[in-house]
């Protein structure tokens, strides 16, 4: 189902203006972004035509997932038993049996490090490679790829699949979007339900705007006529241009089809699992097929694992073992395995880079509440596709998974490596004035 939903702003002038501004902010690729100078280079070195960046927001425990330490004391290793994988010598948690059987499709990095111990700050570092302060905030990796590749066709170059801008209960992550490149390069936000219903909040323009009506231009114009004062206040010309581009997305069959999960066979949808994350991963695969260069799949909007009005992130200060065992790991294990299988069987993995990681790890030593707190000194990431040799472990942590014993891999290195695999070399990065000072993870390029 493809659903643009309804808009709650009613007929209040002020609300209508806000609604427009929201559209303008959320659909930057439809605006001036088309006129910006493009730094599109020959794709000779482009190994990743598309990137799927799976953002495990809230920070999964590395020691309970991809960096188990079975010989550590009980107060470190926790209750889970490592299991063998298809890769000789590689052990992962027993909570990930499907991914253990698919270790030949990804490479694990066990030496990620970050500078920030708090969520929004580490979120910005994890998504941009740089701290929030001093301002200005740097662009999201997806925004960089978006600028580098430019906007082609009717689909946006940077799509974020999730319920909203990643945040905690206090504030949003500053580094979610275009940063110094401008809001033009913010992600195009879509969300996906556990039933595969796709919503595009930014297109909830007006009450009564439904998928059926949106394909009827006269109905749209009729709706427009209902709010002439808003148009006048906003400036009709610009509003019209924005509206037409949004309309163009919705009325282009190929673009609409990319967001329509009902086009998938039921067996395929089932394979990803009837969960929001599972169906979001399936949507990401469809967007890769449709040629979208960068898709960020957010595990959750909120980091908090169990908090009223929050959507069960990976921040397991309490209930760590229960949540990993009961929900988080089974959902991730199923969906991520399905994604890798699906991309692989379609031949897409060769030219698609898939990266999964959180903003940091969790305390190897179990906390007072028999769970785990924040740990920026060591965590993991998973890398697949785009010619990366799979079935390897890059980097290593010490005996308690507290610190890398090899070179620490920073978020800036992650972003630089993504850009390199996307065909953006050091000169291109310098010309765009992004990821300055970054180095690639040599084992991956």
């Amino acid at each position, binding site marked *: 189902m493809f659903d643009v939903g309804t808009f709650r702003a009613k007929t209040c002038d002020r609300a209508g203006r806000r609604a427009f501004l929201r559209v303008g902010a959320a659909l930057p690729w439809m605006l001036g972004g088309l006129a910006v100078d493009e730094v599109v280079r020959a794709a000779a070195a482009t190994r990743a035509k598309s990137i799927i960046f799976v953002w495990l927001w809230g920070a999964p425990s590395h020691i309970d997932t991809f960096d188990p330490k079975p010989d550590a004391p*009980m*107060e470190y290793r*926790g*209750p*889970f*038993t490592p299991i063998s994988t298809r890769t000789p010598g590689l052990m992962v948690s*027993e909570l990930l*049996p499907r991914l253990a059987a698919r270790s030949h499709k990804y490479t694990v990095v066990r030496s990620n490090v970050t500078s920030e111990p708090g969520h929004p700050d580490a979120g910005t570092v994890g998504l941009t490679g740089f701290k929030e302060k001093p301002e200005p905030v740097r662009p999201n990796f997806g925004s960089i790829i978006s600028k580098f590749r430019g906007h082609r066709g009717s689909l946006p170059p940077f799509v974020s699949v999730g*319920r909203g801008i990643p945040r905690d*209960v206090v504030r949003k992550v500053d580094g979610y979007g275009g940063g110094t490149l401008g809001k033009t390069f913010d992600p195009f936000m879509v969300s996906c*339900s*556990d039933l595969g219903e796709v919503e595009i909040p930014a297109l909830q323009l007006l009450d009564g705007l439904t998928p059926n009506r949106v394909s009827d231009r006269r109905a749209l114009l009729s709706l427009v006529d209902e709010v002439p004062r808003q148009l006048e206040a906003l400036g009709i010309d610009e509003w019209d241009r924005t509206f037409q581009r949004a309309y163009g997305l919705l009325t282009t069959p190929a673009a609409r089809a990319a967001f329509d999960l009902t086009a998938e066979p039921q*067996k395929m*949808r*089932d*394979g*990803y*699992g*009837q*969960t*929001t994350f*599972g169906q979001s991963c399936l949507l990401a695969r469809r967007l890769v097929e449709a040629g979208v260069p960068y898709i960020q799949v957010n595990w959750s909007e*909120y980091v*908090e*694992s*169990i*908090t*009223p*009005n*929050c*959507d*069960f992130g990976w*921040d397991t*200060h*309490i*209930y760590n*073992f*229960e949540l990993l*065992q*009961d*929900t988080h790991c*089974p*959902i991730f294990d*199923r969906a991520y395995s399905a994604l890798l299988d699906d991309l692989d069987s379609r031949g897409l993995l060769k030219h698609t880079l898939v990266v999964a990681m959180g903003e940091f790890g969790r305390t190897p030593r*179990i*906390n*007072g*509440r*028999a*769970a785990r707190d924040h740990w920026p000194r060591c965590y993991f990431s998973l890398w697949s596709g785009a010619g990366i040799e799979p079935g390897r472990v890059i980097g290593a942590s010490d005996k308690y998974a507290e610190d890398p014993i090899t070179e620490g891999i920073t978020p800036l290195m992650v972003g630089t490596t993504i850009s390199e695999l996307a065909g953006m070399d050091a000169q291109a990065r310098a010309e765009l004035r992004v990821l300055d000072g970054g180095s690639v993870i040599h084992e991956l390029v």
Partner: protein
Amino acid sequence: MIRLGVLLVAVVGLGFGQFLAAAEPIRLTTDGRVKRDPVFSKPDGSELLFAVLDRPKQLRLMKLTLASGKVESLHPDETRSEFEPAVSRDGRFLAFVQNRGNLSLAMVIKDLMNGHQVDVPPGGGFSGMHSPAIAPDNLRVLYSYPEDGRQHLFSVGIDAKNPTRLVDSSGVNNWPSFSPDGQQVVFSSTRDGDYDLYVMKSDGTDVRRLTDSPKQDIRPRWSPDGRRIVFTSNRDGNYEIYSVAPDGSGLSRVTNHPEQDDFATWSPDGRRLVFVAERDGHQDLVSVEP
């Protein structure tokens, strides 16, 4: 052993008598959403409670009436997550975990006869109760609670007063379940490395190990006749339902499917098990003969 892959007899709306008599596995729900914690809430076995991920931000307690197949919210106006329901044998008391704030969970004990409700509040900071179990005599509730880096079993009065630490060992102790006479409790513990089943007297003494597998043995539930304990184990590689006698003998496997089976509970007459079965990526309640 029951292979549930192919045969799942329909379903919702099946009469209660048929539910009790059916030899085949019966699927009790069909929405496929993420589920957990089924438990019978009436002594005659006519009603089940369970938790479902009703919307992305809320685990909600649901009530399933078996005669009609009707599923409805137990607390329709509640916006906070509630899960892990436990019901007394006579159906009078309900205990469950309720999310009160940021990483903060209380245990609620409710007298369903008069609606009176008491709480065991969360501790300071991030903390929460786990897995309540009501004693057959309705005098106490056991639960799991973390302190000092370990997770202990506590006992509290049905009036939520006088919490007492019953089990204090290394590791995580969780999922207590009373024997029908209330004299013993089975639970899972990681004191020896990974999750295994242990049995103790209900005063916390005479702890003995019941299972010893290198994988997880979790969520034990004592049968109404006292002769079997069902539990979840991934000893074969994924989560399945197993059964064992209280002396550790007679281990048998109840389910066998490449997807997960978990959260088993007994019907009050002991003739059926209900659990959460994942099939083709969808999670539903399924009932089988043990």
